[in-house]
């Protein structure tokens, strides 16, 4: 299991700039409710994940805010409604499902076109191609690229305008492990630079690695929206072990922070009801005459939280 790294940016700013606000957005395809009454807000500086199994409405939601799918009802506004939708789109960077470019144009020609559409100068093309490691192939036609290269070109294209928000829809879909690693490294690099990111994915570990906030969708309905670590009210798990396992079990049963105890081959897993310092656990256990051979506090993995949440509703 992996340790969740939650990146928190400065939340002390009183006036948080809202980048995107979605209000009761719905999309019906005939009888199918692809997106059902979804509302959430995206604030500047955070990394958001949209989670949901395939067909849960992630791409449709993004399609609506990106002006390519017409909403059945509800509304959304970019940058607090200060600009028209297509003007707002010039300030964002988005890649959706799979990279879409003109096959007979080279990387540079394709990016030049994007610059013309976004009304920005073309002088960032080289810099962005360098970032995604495509400099050597910049003049070969797009149709000769591998999927990984296409996806990296899409990222370069989305970054051309130094966007205020980067929207990524399944950016690692269909890539080989090296390709996935490369894309992930790039995303993490961008996240660290403070760019707001909205990442839609069904790959939980992908979201887990970079996101501070999540929106969980299932069958078009929103199940949760908020910080990752508040998705389920729990305080994680303590893994511990001692040579004297029965003694340790007896000791744990008397502790106030314990919800449940599970004995496994590699140790004992204790679910917590309140936050507790591992050093305190160690000290009290030692006082009770038990020497711990192993002690670790672990947050619940996103996968566990996600399964718990989606099965609850």
């Amino acid at each position, binding site marked *: 299991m992996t340790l969740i790294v939650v990146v928190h940016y400065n939340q002390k700013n009183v006036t948080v700039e809202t980048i995107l606000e979605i209000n009761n957005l719905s999309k019906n395809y005939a009888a199918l409710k692809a997106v059902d009454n979804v509302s959430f807000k995206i604030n500047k500086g955070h990394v958001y994940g949209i989670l949901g199994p395939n067909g849960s409405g992630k791409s449709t939601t993004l*399609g609506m805010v*990106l*002006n*390519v*799918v*017409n909403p059945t009802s509800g509304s959304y506004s970019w940058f607090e409604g200060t600009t*028209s*939708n*297509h*003007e*707002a*789109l*010039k300030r964002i960077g*988005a890649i*959706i499902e*799979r990279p*879409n*470019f*003109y*096959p*007979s*144009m080279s990387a540079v*020609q394709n990016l*030049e*076109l*994007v610059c*013309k*559409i*976004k*009304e920005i100068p073309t002088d960032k093309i080289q810099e962005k191609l360098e970032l995604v490691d495509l400099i050597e192939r910049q003049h070969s036609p797009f149709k000769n690229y591998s999927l990984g290269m296409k996806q990296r070109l899409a990222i370069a*294209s989305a970054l051309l305008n130094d966007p205020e928000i980067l929207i990524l829809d399944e950016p690692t879909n269909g890539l080989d492990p090296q390709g996935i690693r490369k894309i992930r490294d790039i995303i993490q690099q961008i996240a660290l630079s403070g760019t707001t990111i909205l990442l839609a994915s069904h790959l939980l570990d992908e979201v887990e690695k970079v996101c501070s906030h999540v929106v969980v969708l299932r069958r078009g309905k929103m199940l949760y929206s908020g910080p990752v670590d508040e998705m389920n009210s729990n305080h994680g798990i303590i893994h511990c072990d001692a040579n004297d396992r029965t003694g340790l079990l007896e000791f744990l049963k008397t502790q106030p922070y314990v919800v449940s105890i599970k004995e496994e081959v590699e140790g004992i897993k204790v679910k917590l009801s309140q936050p507790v310092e591992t050093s305190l656990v160690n000290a009290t256990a030692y006082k009770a005459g038990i020497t711990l051979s192993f002690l670790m506090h672990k947050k619940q993995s996103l996968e566990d939280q996600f399964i718990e949440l989606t099965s609850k509703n």
Partner: protein
Amino acid sequence: MRRLLDIEFHKFRHSKSSKVLTIIYLVIVVLLMLAGLIRININNFSGGLSDLGIFNFPIVWHISTYFTSYLKIFIAIVIVSLTASEYSNRTLKQNLIDGLSKKELILSKVYLSGLLALAVTIIVFIAALILGIIYSDYNEIQIIFSELYFFPVFFLSHFVLFCFCLFAGILVKRSAFALGFLGVWWIVEGILNLIARWFDWKYDLNSLEWFSHILPFNAISNLIKNPAGRIDIIESTVNQVDDNLLDLSYNVDWQDVVSVSIWCFLFIYWSYAILKRRDL
């Protein structure tokens, strides 16, 4: 407008089909210019095509615009394939995401159609001018610059066809099917014409003429009428057979101009309406 043209021309310039077909178009125009050298032999007449008087001003304006009109099919194919491939490559979706509005997207394609129609008109004008200067028996400025109205009409007939292609590409989404759609439409017009002809014959109506102004392909092809009646040698040949066989009217009908202008507007508007309603 300049930005939209710039965007669309960038796509046009870097597309393979556009390069190939532009070259074909230019080659054919040049070949047609060389037509003056062709020797023919009809009805006891023998000599070069130029000796027929077809390159005389102002008839050369009519002849050149009429015959090069058929070449617009090449450019029409480019427009259909450029438009429909925006769907199959999903670049249409990407353009919208990058910040082009749906209205701008249609407008950029309309502008490009206009620009291409204009470019073709200028090329044909220059070609005809050169032919005329070389072969024409009359070289008075007044005569040279008479009947120039064929060129605005020539431009219009191209522009409306390109808009039709744009509409077909947007509606059908696949270039092969979009071309098929245009072909089917053309056949449908042909069948309607036949039916109209039959009705006219049976009930002594005038529906064929009506159809010839109303239907888009009919109106486009009627804009510039067959100039055969103006060529002396053909005229005299035909008149030997039957005085009334050849319809000698070759003026541009205002009904056709109005009709294609309306079609033009409708095609642009419908393209926009379809794109606006559609989820991509």
